[in-house]
């Protein structure tokens, strides 16, 4: 039995953080120039009382509505998030209630960032192919904006909040091929929120500002951009090579590459390094930003609207952990 993506939708919170707003907040900074390089014009961010489950619920309801799906068919929920509503209970269990799904439905959260959607596809495929579940609702939902310091202009320019919903079943429009997955915990310190969980439950209150006026704080999202950049350039080319080899697909037979939409500058460098034709490189971030585990499914929705999801589509996610994963979607 094979597993397929049968339906896919996404949701963006209403509040928009535009470049214009960032220019007003950081008049000393060439926001327009930076934003042009990173490829983001607008990002959506949650209000204080909006959480990952709220976004995921909207995304799931959009999926049911747009694809005419009877929610009673859902027999497993996988939620990828690093910003859960609570330490416990599991946010996926809250979503079973909020979405009115049947109680004979498995549900669990898994904690991954930019590689999360690909891992979710791998888990969902395993559930379907092992006959453990027939219709897996794979959700990604992230509210990184809550982790970012308000004076952190770099991360505020890049990241946006969003949620996506994907139905994985025994039929659909994109067969899920073989995976290449990997992990290197040595990179943990390069993308991290240090306080708040059990290792350091109390805030460090150690904020300092670097020469450029950027805050560095253990109580907020910290990203070492140059290390993440090097990690990506080190890792992704071989991930893609291995995905192609495992699936018996030649580079010439790939119709589209949908990578994690980290930022345009990084993807430009990556595609350049990998010598991938620009017409096979997919970008969708200008109106949403880097939405962490939601970037790939959002890009898949948009590519499908444009009629570009045909043939062999390579997806690859990479980031926090470090964690990475890739696979091929064989699209009809």
């Amino acid at each position, binding site marked *: 039995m094979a597993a397929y993506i049968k339906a896919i939708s996404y949701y963006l919170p209403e509040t928009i953080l535009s470049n214009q707003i960032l220019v007003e907040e950081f008049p000393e900074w060439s926001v327009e120039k930076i934003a042009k390089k990173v490829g983001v014009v607008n990002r959506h961010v949650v209000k204080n009382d909006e959480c990952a489950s709220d976004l995921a619920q909207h995304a799931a309801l959009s999926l049911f509505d747009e694809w005419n799906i009877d929610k009673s068919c859902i027999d497993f929920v996988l939620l990828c998030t690093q910003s859960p509503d609570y330490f416990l209970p599991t946010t996926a269990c809250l979503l079973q209630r909020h979405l009115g799904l049947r109680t004979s439905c498995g549900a669990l959260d898994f904690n991954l960032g930019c590689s999360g959607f690909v891992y979710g596809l791998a888990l969902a495929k395993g559930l379907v192919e092992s006959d453990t579940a027939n219709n897996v609702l794979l959700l990604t939902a992230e509210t990184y904006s809550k982790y970012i310091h308000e004076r952190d202009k770099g991360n505020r320019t890049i990241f946006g909040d969003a949620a996506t919903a994907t139905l994985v079943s025994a039929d659909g429009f994109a067969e899920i091929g073989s995976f290449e997955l990997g992990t290197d915990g040595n990179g943990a310190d390069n993308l991290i929120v240090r306080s708040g969980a059990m290792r350091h439950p109390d805030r460090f209150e150690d904020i300092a500002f670097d020469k450029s006026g950027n805050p560095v704080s253990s109580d907020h999202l910290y990203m070492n951009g140059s290390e993440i*950049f090097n990690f990506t350039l080190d890792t992704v080319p071989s991930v893609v090579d291995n995905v192609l080899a495992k699936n018996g697909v030649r580079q010439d037979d790939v119709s589209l590459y949908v990578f994690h939409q980290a930022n345009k500058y990084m993807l430009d460098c990556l595609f350049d390094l990998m010598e991938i034709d620009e017409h096979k490189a997919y970008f969708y971030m200008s109106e949403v930003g880097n939405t962490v585990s939601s970037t790939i499914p959002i890009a898949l929705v948009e590519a499908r609207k444009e009629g570009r999801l045909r043939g062999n589509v390579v997806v690859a996610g990479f980031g926090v952990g470090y964690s990475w994963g890739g696979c091929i979607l064989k699209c009809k």
Partner: protein
Amino acid sequence: MNIDQFVSDFAECFDDTEAEVFTPTLKFKELEEWSSLQGLAIIAMCRKSYGIRISGAEIQEADTIQDVYALVSEKLG
């Protein structure tokens, strides 16, 4: 690899600063245009043009273009 070519490659990592400003002794982090994105551009340039991986910390330790050139030269062996 020679310093003139390296300075020229280095200058291409910047958009707004005139090419003639770039010399081996330029303290590039004092340029008005300097930002973390230029740091990424230098990392990418060293990889693409010289096949050398340099880190953000190594760029932070360098003051002049000559310092980065020496780093790349050392790694090239």
